[in-house]
């Protein structure tokens, strides 16, 4: 049993690099696709990189895009660590955005910083409600959270369209025939402060600070310990006296709350109003899905999610320059994101195999068949 505590550094490092290999593999497939589309892959990737990180303005845009990705990713870290799958980021962002916008449009007599604070809180609460409902449904009615979060996405989109075309519509649009679904503009005093003479706003600092908070909560508090314990082994947790259902709800609720905050930052930091084209991504920019990609790439670790979100924010921004230079549509980035997800979850098998080998090496006798296997399979969504 002594060997159990020996750290196998080589394989640990390999484990840590798996997402990087996955991303490289995705870029390689992307290069083949570029070549098939008769574009020079090297030129394309150079344009992508320059567009994302080539100038201070590019970096600012990248960070603006990274903000919602990071916030959603933090929520995903919490949910997946608790072994619940939250695919409802889009809907949670929308409801968070609506709540925050409502605060901004209602409390017009209040000082700016108070309204901004309340609006961010409102976004957090809105997302928490939208994530909490699937949490309650899973914990107390055994409804699969993948399905309920997907359904809640659609409900949120229709609710948003109803609100933006009806009760919350921009009064100037209400008189026009076009009726663009958007709210009135927020007061200038309610905008999230800019950090530089670019579009970069305070949201990125909030997100990075929260990444540290989430890290501390997950690994240094009882709450975080229990969420992770339930995620790793609900049966053992129950025997250990943890109220499993409560932590399933909490994991989804907190996960939604961060996505809701992401929605609020989009309204108060980027558009200064809630606006959409009638689809979810018209408001979210698909951050509810891309945040999952960033979190997986960051190994479901809040701090690693920071560089991961910046990287994927950069891809989204750089895609436009790539489109200009080599005439390959920016949609290529969505393809690459999808490949990264597939490759990362596929590469988990090697990590599990090494983990199993470590376990086998650590115990003198072979681990009882099934016992260790089942445990490792159960954590697939998480760790």
């Amino acid at each position, binding site marked *: 049993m002594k060997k159990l505590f020996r750290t196998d550094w080589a394989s640990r490092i390999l484990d840590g690099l798996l997402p990087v290999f996955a991303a490289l593999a995705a870029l390689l497939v992307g290069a083949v696709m570029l070549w098939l589309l008769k574009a020079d892959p090297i030129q394309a990737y150079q344009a992508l990189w320059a567009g994302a990180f080539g100038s201070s303005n590019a970096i600012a845009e990248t960070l603006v895009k990274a903000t919602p990705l990071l916030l959603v990713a933090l929520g995903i870290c919490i949910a997946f660590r608790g072994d619940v799958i939250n695919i409802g980021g889009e809907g949670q962002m929308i409801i968070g955005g609506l709540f925050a916008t409502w605060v901004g449009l209602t409390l017009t007599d209040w000082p700016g910083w108070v309204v901004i604070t309340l609006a961010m809180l409102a976004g957090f609460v809105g997302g928490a409600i939208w994530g909490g409902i699937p949490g309650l449904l899973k914990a107390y009615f055994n409804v699969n959270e993948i399905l309920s979060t997907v359904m809640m996405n659609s409900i949120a989109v*229709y609710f948003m369209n109803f609100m933006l075309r009806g009760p919350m519509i921009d009064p100037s649009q209400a008189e026009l025939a076009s009726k663009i679904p958007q709210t009135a503009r927020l007061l200038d005093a309610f905008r999230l402060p800019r950090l530089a003479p670019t579009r970069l706003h305070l949201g990125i600092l909030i997100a990075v600070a929260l990444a540290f908070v989430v890290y501390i909560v997950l690994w240094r508090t009882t709450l975080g310990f229990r969420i992770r314990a339930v995620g790793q082994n609900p049966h053992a947790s129950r025997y250990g006296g943890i109220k499993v259902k409560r932590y399933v709800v909490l994991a989804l609720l907190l996960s939604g709350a961060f996505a809701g905050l992401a929605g609020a930052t989009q309204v108060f930091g980027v558009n200064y109003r809630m606006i959409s084209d009638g689809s979810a991504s018209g408001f979210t920019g698909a951050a509810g899905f891309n945040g999952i990609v960033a979190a997986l790439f960051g190994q479901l670790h809040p701090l690693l999610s920071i560089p991961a979100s910046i990287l994927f924010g950069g891809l989204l921004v750089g895609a436009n320059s790539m489109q200009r230079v080599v005439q390959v549509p920016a949609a290529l980035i969505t393809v690459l994101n999808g490949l990264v*997800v597939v490759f990362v979850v596929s590469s988990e098998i090697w990590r599990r195999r090494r983990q199993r080998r470590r376990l086998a090496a650590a115990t003198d006798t072979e681990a009882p068949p099934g016992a260790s296997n089942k445990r490792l399979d159960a954590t697939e969504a998480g760790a």
Partner: protein
Amino acid sequence: MIGDLFSVTVLVGILASGIRLATPYLYAAIGETFGQRSGVLNLGVEGQMLMGAFAAFYVALATGNLWLGVLAALLVGALMGLAMAFVTVHLHAQQGISGIGFYLFGLGLSDLLFQKLLGTVETVNGFPKVHIPVLSDIPGIGEIFFSQNVLVYLAFALVPIAWFVLNKTTLGLKIRAVGENPDAADSLGISVVRVRYFTIILGGTLAGMAGASMSIALLNVFQQNMTSGLGFIAVALVYFGAWSPWGVMAGALLFSMVNSLQLWIQVLGIPIPSDIAVMMPYVLTILVLVVTVKRVRAPSALTRPFERES
């Protein structure tokens, strides 16, 4: 103006387009039923549908042959199913998340190819209505059930076929065994891997068909993200329908009828907030899941990768 809704012509119109709009849900959800009965949740349906929709549209536009378009959609769907099967069956990847990966892949690639190969929104002459002799002359009923395009008939024919295959054939028994207890199935000599490959590829093929039914039979255009969440609903319909093809059909009709109603409300210019109406099937689906989940049991091995104990 609400009274307009209740004229016979409008009601027949609503029901007829409701039947028609059920087509993509049916193909996609029946395919998903096979996958889930064998224990695999394919959340990439939406991406497979988008790829199928584009392939069908592009080939139909290029060759002028709609059936070649259908064939292309089936092939593309099957290929994506094969990839999904490899990742989930061989590499034991987490099914829900890899499905999201395939969704993003299909969403991006169909958009990319559309912009690169077509550039602008074009239309094709999709499958024409096939009036079934005699039956289509019945007033009302004829227009609703017997004056649809051929892909609609095929979709509804698929329901009893799927039910028969799943419940009355050896293949169906194998699929269900693998979904309920893969270890036992394995010990009886059923290849879990082969059965799951088969069902996932079949699911992908039918998802491709669902896409084709949208781009060359229902709407006759291709646009980026034209399925707008329909594939995800198809996955939910399988739960809604309690893993039975007939239940899936009921769910598909619920969604399509409400959609059809909402379209007619817009056409007639009735001032009802249609967004709220369209929201209802989703709310109802969640409620149905709450009520039935205790009564109906999902396939036991759903979402669990199979690994032979050594």
